[in-house]
């Protein structure tokens, strides 16, 4: 049971670390859901064509980081509203992936990669959480112990302080998008390699649950780990309930969103 819950938690923890990075820079990571989907699809496509899971992970990270870097630069250059450009990323995912999937695989549905990629399935699912946890610790150290980390944290809350030190806050905001993209690519790759397949809507609300976990974890990487485990346990329970057939499967699709909304309300109420 614990192994199952931790396997559920791994991609969500990656996503949450990404959302946290962009939260520090004052950008609500509304692009997370679409970015995870793009990352998952690129991992599947690259791993399938190259036959290597490692290339899939690396390629997915490159594609995702390049894309969000471009969007971040666009947002900074044109002083665009990052909410809207972030949502545009989600639509880009929804519009392009079915098209690319048809071109590459001849289907808009499930893309099996387990026949071509040896490293997939159980072992990836089990390795995910330890990897995510060590990244969370590393990220916490980066934020608290390095001057780069301090600058990143100030990019959102005190951009003037950065500017006074001769640093460009916009630079750090763009950096935060790229870090978020890196973590999103890990979340997407973990999902694809864990399943041994790419399935449409693979992110299943994780990008939004991650935003809630950031708030529930009081924007601290280590508290976020606890919030993520709470969410993962909840989704594990609903999986069991769904298995009993007492709750219709369609209703469960809405659960991550309802949970996230409840988390926001609870986190805010406590603050007051």
């Amino acid at each position, binding site marked *: 049971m614990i192994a199952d819950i931790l396997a559920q938690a791994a991609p969500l923890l990656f996503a949450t670390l990404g959302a946290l990075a962009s939260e520090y820079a004052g950008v609500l990571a509304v692009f997370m859901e679409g970015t995870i989907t793009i990352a998952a699809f690129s991992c599947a496509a690259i791993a399938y064509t190259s036959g290597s899971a490692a290339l899939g992970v690396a390629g997915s990270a490159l594609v995702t980081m390049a894309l969000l870097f471009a969007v971040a630069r666009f947002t900074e250059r044109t002083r665009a*509203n990052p909410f809207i450009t972030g949502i545009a990323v989600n639509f880009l995912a929804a519009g392009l992936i079915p098209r690319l999937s048809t071109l590459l695989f001849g289907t808009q549905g499930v893309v099996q990669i387990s026949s071509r990629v040896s490293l997939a399935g159980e072992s990836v699912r089990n390795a995910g959480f330890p990897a995510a946890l060590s990244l969370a610790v590393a990220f916490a150290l980066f934020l608290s112990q390095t001057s780069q980390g301090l600058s990143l944290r100030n990019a959102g809350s005190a951009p003037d302080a950065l500017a006074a030190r001769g640093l460009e806050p916009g630079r750090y905001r763009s950096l935060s998008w790229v870090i978020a993209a890196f973590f999103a690519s890990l979340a997407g790759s973990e999902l694809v390699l864990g399943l041994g397949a790419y399935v449409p809507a693979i992110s299943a609300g994780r990008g939004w649950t991650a935003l809630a976990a950031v708030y529930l974890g009081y924007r601290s990487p280590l508290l976020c780990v606890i919030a993520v485990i709470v969410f993962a346990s909840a989704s594990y329970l609903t999986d069991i309930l769904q298995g009993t057939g007492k709750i219709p499967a369609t209703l469960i699709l809405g659960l991550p969103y309802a949970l996230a909304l409840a988390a926001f309300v609870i986190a805010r109420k406590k603050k007051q």
Partner: protein
Amino acid sequence: MNRFTRGPLRASRLARLASHAAVPLASFGLALALIAALIALSSPDPLSSVASFFTRPFSSAWYLGNTLDMAGLLILAGTGSAVALRAGAFNLGGEAQIYAPALASAVILAGGAPRAAAALGLPPIATAFLALAAAIALGGALGFIPGILRARLGISELLSSFLLSAALIPVADYLVSGPFRDTAGNLVATKPIGDALALRSILPPSHLNVSFFVALAVAVAAWFFLSRTEPGYRLRMTGSARDFARFAGFPVARAAALAMAVSGALHGLAGYFAVTGTWYRCHEGFSSGMGWSALAIALVARRNPLAVIPAAIAFSWLETASDAATLSASLSFDATPLIQAIIFLVVSARYLPFRRKS
């Protein structure tokens, strides 16, 4: 106040108008080019596919009428998005605010209500009013909840409206495919509403009906309210000059919550008309991106309800065109999310400097 906001010279106003129109035109142009390129790339006969992309929407009463009918629904929802934006609130819950009211009106109109009304000796229009009121109230409530969450708890309405909507859509899907499903047909949909309650087409065989003109009237009324009345001015101030509005004693938080409720109600109205005038029932996944399109339209229109009208018609044309072209090339590909992505990207570029200044 208008003395100060209006440009003193006619020429400068024209120049301003041109600069306002540049970004929307550019975003539509870009979307158009990209969709056409995608169609050309993936069609076995690119020339005829691209040609039908441009001509098909005007080729028959069916396409023309349906384009305008869809534009009417988008004008209603887009006006709703614009009203919320004016008050400084982003309504990202448009999908459920269309879907849930549509489901409610379909259930009322196709269920026992018309028979009950007939038994009581009430005319069918009484049932229509009941469904209309239910749709508006439900949409309004779905907009008001995120609005009040922001006013009371400071939760971003952007996030809560989206999450509320995303949580409710599966519930609506479940109701349509389960308890309220019409078991007589193969569609995953509710029972059709009776002919007496359906809005008659004014351009057969298309679905164009009176709702298009209602939408025009609503957009004009919203424009008048926002730009020519005292409460409308206050509402705009809460959006564009929050501190000033607070200093002047306007109830800033309440105004935004109210604008969100109005926004939801207009989405609900769009849902009601989509059922009574376009589909005559509520099917699974009913809103299918309309809420997002409405937001894109409101942004292109720079939050101005009058500009929502041409923006919605252009958007609807773009959708019909790409649908027709992909259909003729037998491609299964939904261009709407791409159109939305391009519009959000391009429009936002101009949008924020304009907000930051204020």
